[in-house]
C-alpha cells in the first residue's frame, strides 16, 4: 500500500470518470428540464453543504478540534462575494468567479485573525471561543452599514436563468468536487499526516519536529477559505442574504453532517451532507421539528457511535471494484483448475 503511483493512478482515474459521469448525467437532466428548478436548487445546495461539511471535517475530524463558528466564515464569504458582484460593474460571468476567490481569501483572513488567539486554547475552551467569534461576526454584520444590517443584501444576481438553468449547479458541483479532491490529497500527504499526528497526540507530534501551532492555524484557515467560497456560491444561489442565515443553528447543522457522517471521513461528510440537505427538503412540513430531531440524532450518535457512522473510514468505489474483481478472478481460476 502506501502512495505508490501505479495502483493509485488507476483509482484516481476511476474516481474521476465516475465524478464526470455523474456530472454529465445531472447536467443533461437539468438542461432538458427533466430535473426542475426546485430540484436543481436542492442539488446546488447539496454541493454547497458538501463543501461546508468536508471543510469542517478537516478541522473537527482530521485535526480533532471542535470548532463552533464555521457559519461565521460562510457569512464572511457570502457578503464579500455579493458585495463584489453587486458593486464592481463587471459582467457577472467574470465577476462571479473572481468574487468566489475573494470570498475565500476574505474568510481566510478572518480565519487567521480568529485562529491565532483561539487556537492557543484546547477542547472546551476552543469550542466556546469559536462559538463566540462566530456570534461576534454575526452581530457585526447585523450592525454594519455596508452589510445593510439585519436587512441584509437582496437582489444578488445568479448566473442561472430560466433559459439557462445550469450555471450555478455547474459551479457548485465543480467546486464541491475540487474541494473533496483537495481534502483527500491534503489528508494523504505529509501535511495531512502532521495534522493527524497532532490530533492523536499533540505533545508527541511536537516532540517529533512538527510545528503544531503552524499546522493548527493552517488547517483552520484552509477550512475557513472553503467555507467562504461556499458562502459566496450560496449568496448567489439564493439571491437574498441576511446575518440570521449564518447563525449558530447553521453552524450546528454543518456540525451534524460531520458528526453523523464520521469524524475524519471525507466520504462520510459527503454522504451525510447529501442526505441531510435532501431529507429536510422532502419533509418540509416537519421543518419545525428539524432541530429537535437533529439534537436527538447528535446525542444518539455520540452515545452509540461517537466516531460517526463511517468513523474514519472512506468509501472507495475503485477499492470496492478492485476487491470484487479480485474475488471474481479467484473464482474463475478455481473453476479452471477444476475445483479443489
Amino acid at each position, binding site marked *: 500500500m502506501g502512495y505508490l503511483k501505479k495502483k493509485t493512478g488507476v483509482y484516481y482515474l476511476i474516481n474521476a470518470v465516475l465524478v464526470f459521469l455523474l456530472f454529465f448525467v445531472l447536467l443533461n437532466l437539468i438542461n432538458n428540464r427533466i430535473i426542475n428548478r426546485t430540484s436543481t436548487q436542492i442539488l446546488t445546495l447539496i454541493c454547497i453543504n458538501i463543501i461546508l461539511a468536508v471543510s469542517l471535517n478537516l478541522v473537527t475530524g482530521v485535526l480533532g478540534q471542535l470548532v463552533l463558528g464555521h457559519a461565521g466564515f460562510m457569512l464572511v464569504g457570502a457578503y464579500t462575494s455579493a458585495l463584489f458582484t453587486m458593486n464592481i460593474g463587471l459582467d457577472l460571468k467574470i465577476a462571479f468567479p473572481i468574487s468566489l476567490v475573494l470570498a475565500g481569501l476574505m474568510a481566510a483572513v478572518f480565519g487567521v485573525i480568529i485562529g491565532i488567539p483561539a487556537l492557543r486554547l484546547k477542547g472546551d475552551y476552543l469550542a466556546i471561543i469559536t462559538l463566540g467569534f462566530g456570534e461576534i461576526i454575526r452581530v457585526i454584520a447585523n450592525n454594519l452599514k455596508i452589510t445593510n444590517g439585519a436587512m441584509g443584501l437582496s437582489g444578488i444576481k445568479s448566473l442561472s436563468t430560466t433559459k439557462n438553468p445550469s450555471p450555478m449547479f455547474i459551479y457548485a458541483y465543480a467546486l464541491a468536487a475540487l474541494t473533496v479532491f483537495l481534502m483527500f490529497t*491534503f489528508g494523504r*500527504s*505529509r501535511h495531512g499526516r*502532521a495534522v493527524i*499526528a497532532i490530533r*492523536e497526540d499533540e505533545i508527541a507530534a*511536537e*516532540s*517529533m519536529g512538527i510545528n503544531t501551532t503552524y499546522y493548527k492555524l*493552517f488547517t483552520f484557515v484552509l477550512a475557513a477559505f472553503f467555507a467562504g467560497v461556499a458562502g459566496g456560491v450560496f449568496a448567489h444561489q439564493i439571491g437574498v442574504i441576511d446575518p440570521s442565515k449564518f447563525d449558530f443553528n447553521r453552524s450546528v447543522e454543518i456540525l451534524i453532517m460531520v458528526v453523523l457522517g464520521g469524524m475524519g471521513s471525507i466520504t462520510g461528510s459527503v454522504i451525510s451532507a447529501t442526505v441531510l440537505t435532501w431529507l429536510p427538503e422532502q419533509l418540509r412540513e416537519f421543518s419545525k421539528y428539524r432541530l429537535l430531531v437533529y439534537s436527538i440524532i447528535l446525542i444518539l450518535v455520540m452515545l452509540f457511535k461517537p466516531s460517526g457512522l463511517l468513523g474514519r473510514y472512506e468509501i472507495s468505489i475503485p477499492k470496492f471494484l478492485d476487491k470484487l474483481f479480485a474475488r471474481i478472478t479467484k473464482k474463475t481460476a478455481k473453476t479452471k483448475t477444476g475445483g479443489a
Partner: protein
Amino acid sequence: MHLLLTKDLSIEFGGLQALKDLHIEINNREIVGLIGPNGAGKTTVFNLLTGVYLPTSGAMRLEGNSIIGKKPFEINRSGIARTFQNIRLFKNMTVADNIKVSMHQNMKYNTFSAMFRLPSYWKEEKKVDIKAREFLEIFGMEDKADQLACNLPYGQQRKLEILRALATKPKILLLDEPAAGMNPTETQELMEVIRRIRDQFNIAILLIEHDMSLVMNICERLYVLDYGHLIAQGTPEEIRTNPQVISAYLGS
C-alpha cells in the same frame, strides 16, 4: 565541545524544587545512563531538554548553542529526540505512518505540490515509504508496517517509540525506560539494538532505566539522581559500589 551540556540546571514547580543544579555532559557516540529512585526527577530532565518544561535557572547547550526557551519542535529539529515513559504513539495511524511523521521535517514538497499531486509529491513519498520500512527492519517489524499502531503488542509498541524518535535524525537520542515491561530476551535484544543504533547512526544516547542489568551492561557512564539532586556520577563499576547510591535506592 560537548554535544549536550547542562549547567546548574534547575526547575521549580510552585514551591517544589524538582531539580537543582544539574550538571551533565554528553559527548557524541556515548551511551550514558540516568538512574535513580522513582520520583528523582529523571523524566523532568528529559522534559527540560526537549523544551516541554522551561527551567527556572541554569543553562542547556546543544553543540554549544543554548536551547533554553526553544519550542519542542525546534529542539527536535536541532537534534534532540526522545521517547516517552508512557508510550505516546499515534495510535490510529499505521506503524509506517508513525515513522513518516518523524520524517516530515526532512521532506521538502509543499502544500501546493501535495494538494495538486505534483511530481515532487510522488517522488518523495516513494522515498519516504522505503526509508520508513528500512527503519522497521532494525527491529524486524517490516511486516507490521501497515498495521495500526494501537494493534501492536506492547513490546513492539515500545520498539516503535524508539524507531519513531530515531527517524527524526537526531544527534542525541533520549530513551525513557525503553526496557519497561520487557522480558529478559527482549531486553537482551534491546541492548544489542541500542549499540547497533549508536554505531550505525553515529549518535549519542542518554537513557533512563530501572533495569540494572541493562544499565550496567550498556552504559559507559552513569548519572545518579535522587530528589532532584545529582548524587553521583561515574562508570557503572564506580556507581555500583558508591555508598550514597546504595542508600538512595535502599533508603536509610
